[in-house]
């Protein structure tokens, strides 16, 4: 299935939860390798519902969540990017969801794909996006009492950590 077909089906089913579809600059639909760059923008509070549909619908069957990455777009927007692929139909799609820095909340998809559990903890850890409905939302890579979220573009390193000087 092409991204356009997937988008059309989602549009009929979810309507306003879908915001737009875009071809990124590196995209084009020339070959399989590049087809992954077409992305669909979904509403952050509908992420779980759409994910369940994408996984369970027999025409979609996106059973494999390749990658889940947080992004700070440096304009007050944070985002999560989902790279999905299907082992059955061998097609791929990219979902994106955006939230503001003031209200960084995105729905968890760890019920849909087990692998999202650790990825979402990483996003929470490094970007400070609160994942609603996550079963075990703790920091994963940094110490529990670290201050700030390092991958945010405006991150400032704390001066001391337990009395040790941090910036070298």
């Amino acid at each position, binding site marked *: 299935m092409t991204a356009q077909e997937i988008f059309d089906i989602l549009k009929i089913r979810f309507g306003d939860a879908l915001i737009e579809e875009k071809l990124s600059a590196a995209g084009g639909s020339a070959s*399989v390798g590049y087809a992954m760059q077409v992305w669909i923008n979904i509403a952050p509070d509908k992420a779980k519902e759409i994910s369940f549909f994408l996984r369970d619908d027999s025409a979609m069957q996106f059973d494999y969540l390749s990658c889940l990455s947080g992004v700070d777009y440096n304009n007050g927007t944070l985002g999560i990017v989902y790279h999905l692929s299907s082992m059955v139909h061998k097609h791929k799609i990219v979902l994106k969801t955006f939230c503001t820095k003031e209200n960084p909340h995105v729905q968890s998809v760890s019920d849909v794909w087990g692998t999202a559990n650790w990825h979402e903890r990483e996003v929470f850890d490094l970007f400070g996006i609160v994942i609603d409905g996550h079963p075990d939302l703790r920091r994963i890579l940094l110490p529990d009492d670290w201050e700030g979220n390092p991958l945010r573009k405006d991150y400032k390193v704390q001066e001391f950590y337990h009395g040790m000087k941090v910036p070298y």
Partner: protein
Amino acid sequence: MIDLTMLQPPTLPTDYTVKLGHTKTSTGKTIRTEEMIVNMGPQHPSTHGVLRLEIVIDGEIIVDCIPHIGYLHRCFEKHCEQMTNYQQIIPYADRMDYCSAMTNEWAFVLAVERLLKIEVPERVEYIRVIMAELQRIASHLIAVGTYGIDSGAFTPFLYTFIDREKILDLFEMTCGARLLYNYIWIGGLSHDLPPNFIGQAKDFITYFHPRITMLNDLLTYNEIFVKRTANVGVLPKDVAINFAVSGPQLRGSGVNWDLRRDDPYSIYHKLEWQPQIGKGEVGTVGDCWDRHIVRMREMEQSLNIIEQALAALPEGNVKAAIPKRIRPEKDAEIYVRTEASRGELGYYIISDGTTSPFRVKARGPAFVNLSVLPEIVRGGLIADLVLTAGSIDIVLGEVDR
């Protein structure tokens, strides 16, 4: 009667509460039978690095297992954003999975090449395949050798390291480095193959075929090893896919999925080979032995791939396509996944039109493969935990990034 709730460690990071219990012995004495929390690592020799496993046990049975990672976190992704150009990231990518550096840098370089839409010469593709497959053998040799140690067989480890040394000699001959190469560059390679490389690589292939048979006799089909690993740590197919497990661990669970075939890159589609999958020959499909045998067979497979690539190696200039300046378009982004030694290694790169990336996300196979560990050790024996964790073949440099 002591208050049993006071016996809990005060700083348990999760909100797990141990279940309490009492039982009467035959002499009429009351003993406590509550669950216990045990820490394994971060300096435990069989966690293959600084991994801490917090284990809740009921007697010998594992009730829950909570991995704690991050002890080796070195801000790879933040560093990438701070670099002044794309080439500077390649040595960092080397250091992610230090047992399999060649495949790491290839994945990153491939992502940047696709971002720039450059085609590399045919010769470069062949040399990259040869190097990546040699690296896969070297990496699997460590996995197999250390897995032997985990299961109590020390000797195979020494044999695998002799063989690995020969591969490292080949790498040293080519690019001067033995562990972290910086060999694959964006658009090409740092050096062409030295004149005597092909002969020496062919010698290695003839030498290594019987060594695999020997390793199989020594370890794989060893009665004790089979008894120890068959039916242990079974990872069912659907759980494996749901947790996006990849590489030998996924194929060990009987899933016929290999990115070299299913999401083709480079010249793998021109070569004759088949993904190796676990069939449950001595126990259940997806047990520790299956994951081990998949690695053993993949080594043989890699030898075949190298043999074919060496035979078909075309002439060409390996530096012909190296761009002078690397500046992808503004807002261009790409996710490229490759089959590294441990599974799907993906790089998600966003460009902002400058000479350094806006965002780099590395999707390491070890990080994702480790996340399934609690699912497969629950209900098993604590003595099998070391074997199960060993069969996942994690490298903490990649888990923590």
